């Protein structure tokens, strides 16, 4: 299948000399939800801004639905909706006026029914005659989403869409994003809430210091890099690991009251029964036992850290 967005060897060096993107290659599949993760300053916004025409690339090229974003910008951009990271609204205009403006700007004929639907979906219909500056921060962000959806894009970029949005509305927004996907809209989002990516994304890309360091399906990623952890609370604190347990990956924490054993999620479970057997042979008694699966957040932190140590 032809990718809906194809980023090829994309590089960006800003005027000040900071290199924000280094030979980025990335394909987005039609109809997927793609989460782009990375620490502050990784280059997420820069990448999105280039695709949407706000920043000029230094080299490389991008195709949107097969159209070059520069030489064939009309065809490319008319398919794309953008919700930028920064809140930006026209203070004095009424909500509905700015949404109509966005639709017109993208070359679409007026369609009040569609505008009403978008505003209702984002719980802004009651506020349609309110001046933008009288909206709360979360409402402004929803307004920006409404503006992006007003022209019925096939590809939607959401640069930290849920920053400053309360928990309940965040869930509603996730639902809305899923509904959009069901209608065939491709969604590329960035977020610092890993939970969000874990909840929604089909695929995840991790970018760090201008390089894409990993792209994979979310579940594959969880399986590949996910680790489990077994935690044992001991009856008696241990000063050190007994000799009998040498050669195991055990860690003693909490002043000797807890033992931690880390293992791959896929590895077979004989390991654990073996371990428990050895513990009882060594006369170590435990009160409680817990296992925990690492979250995407742990995976992400590990990745980015590994990368930074590697490059240092």
């Amino acid at each position, binding site marked *: 299948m032809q990718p809906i967005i194809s980023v090829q060897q994309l590089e960006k060096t800003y005027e000040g000399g900071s290199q924000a993107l280094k030979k980025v290659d990335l394909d987005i599949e039609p109809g997927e939800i793609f989460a782009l993760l990375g620490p502050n300053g990784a280059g997420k916004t820069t990448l999105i801004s280039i695709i949407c025409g706000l920043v000029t690339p230094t080299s490389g090229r991008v195709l949107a639905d097969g159209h070059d974003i520069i030489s064939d910008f009309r065809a490319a951009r*008319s398919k794309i909706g953008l919700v930028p990271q920064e809140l*930006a609204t026209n203070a004095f205009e009424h909500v509905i006026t700015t949404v*109509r403006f966005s639709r017109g700007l993208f070359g679409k004929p007026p369609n009040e029914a569609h505008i009403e639907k978008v505003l209702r979906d984002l719980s802004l219909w009651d506020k349609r005659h309110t001046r933008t500056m009288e909206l709360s921060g979360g409402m402004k962000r929803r307004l920006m989403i409404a503006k992006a959806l007003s022209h019925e894009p096939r590809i939607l970029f959401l640069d930290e869409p849920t920053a400053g949005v309360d928990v309940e509305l965040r869930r509603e927004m996730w639902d809305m994003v899923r509904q959009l996907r069901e209608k065939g809209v491709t969604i590329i989002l960035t977020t610092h809430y890993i939970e969000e990516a874990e909840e929604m994304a089909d695929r995840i890309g991790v970018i760090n210091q201008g390089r894409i360091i990993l792209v994979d399906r979310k579940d594959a990623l969880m399986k590949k890099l996910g680790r489990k952890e077994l935690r044992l609370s001991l009856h008696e604190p241990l000063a050190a690991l007994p000799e009998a347990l040498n050669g195991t990956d055990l860690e003693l924490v909490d002043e000797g009251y807890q033992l931690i054993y880390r293992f791959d999620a896929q590895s077979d479970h004989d390991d654990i029964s073996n371990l428990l057997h050895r513990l009882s042979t060594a006369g170590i008694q435990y009160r409680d036992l817990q296992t925990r699966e690492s979250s995407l957040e742990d995976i992400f932190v590990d990745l980015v850290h590994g990368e930074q140590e590697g490059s240092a």
Partner: protein
Amino acid sequence: MNYYSIRAIYIFEMSRTWRTLLQSIATPVISTCLYFVVFGSAIGSQMMDIDGVSYGAFIVPGLIMLTLLMQSVSNASFGIYFPKFNGTIYEVMSAPISYIEIVIGYVGAAATKSVVLGLIILVTARLFVDYQIDHPVWMFSFLVLTAITFSFLGFIIGIWADGFEKLQIVPMMVVTPLTFLGGTFYSIDMLPSFWQGVTLLNPMVYLVSGFRWAFYGTSDVHIAISLGMTLGFLASFVAITWWIFKTGYKLKS
């Protein structure tokens, strides 16, 4: 041409005018009226005719030109500066719309406002002084041409400015003095010959003179030269605007 996009920008900009009606129409009309009262009626009645035109009538074209220039520059500069300032420019820059279409929307709206304002002032002036218009078609063409030309200048200033001071500086420091010294209140024949020569370096002389010719058939410089100079300004401003978009100056990083 992307008709809906141009229309969206144009309507959005025009609606800003209606919302700020007092500021965009009433204020310039009132201040121009004050000029007519003071210079046209009060002082003008004590002045000699110039080229057979009463002083009050003589200054009408100059005053309209003055307002037209100031308003074109400030409307157009504000129109593009404001979205840059509040960040909403991202939408325009990411829309499937060409530079030409963006310019038609913004410059067109600003020029429309100025032309409407110029016509309102023209009508209002009638309350204070008697004037005639020998060449109405030329008069209107000059009005439109000047409005477009200086809306372009305003558009350029709005993109260049990165603060409200800069936005004010050019109209205050450049446009106003040049218009006042460009023969709004006097005929350049009245100046000593050395200063007449200096004045001919002032671009505004040509605009005011050409516009006045459309009213009374007399002018300091030949109408063809006035027209040529105005078109020359327009061409240079269009060229600068083209360069801005070509390089993304202050619009894209």
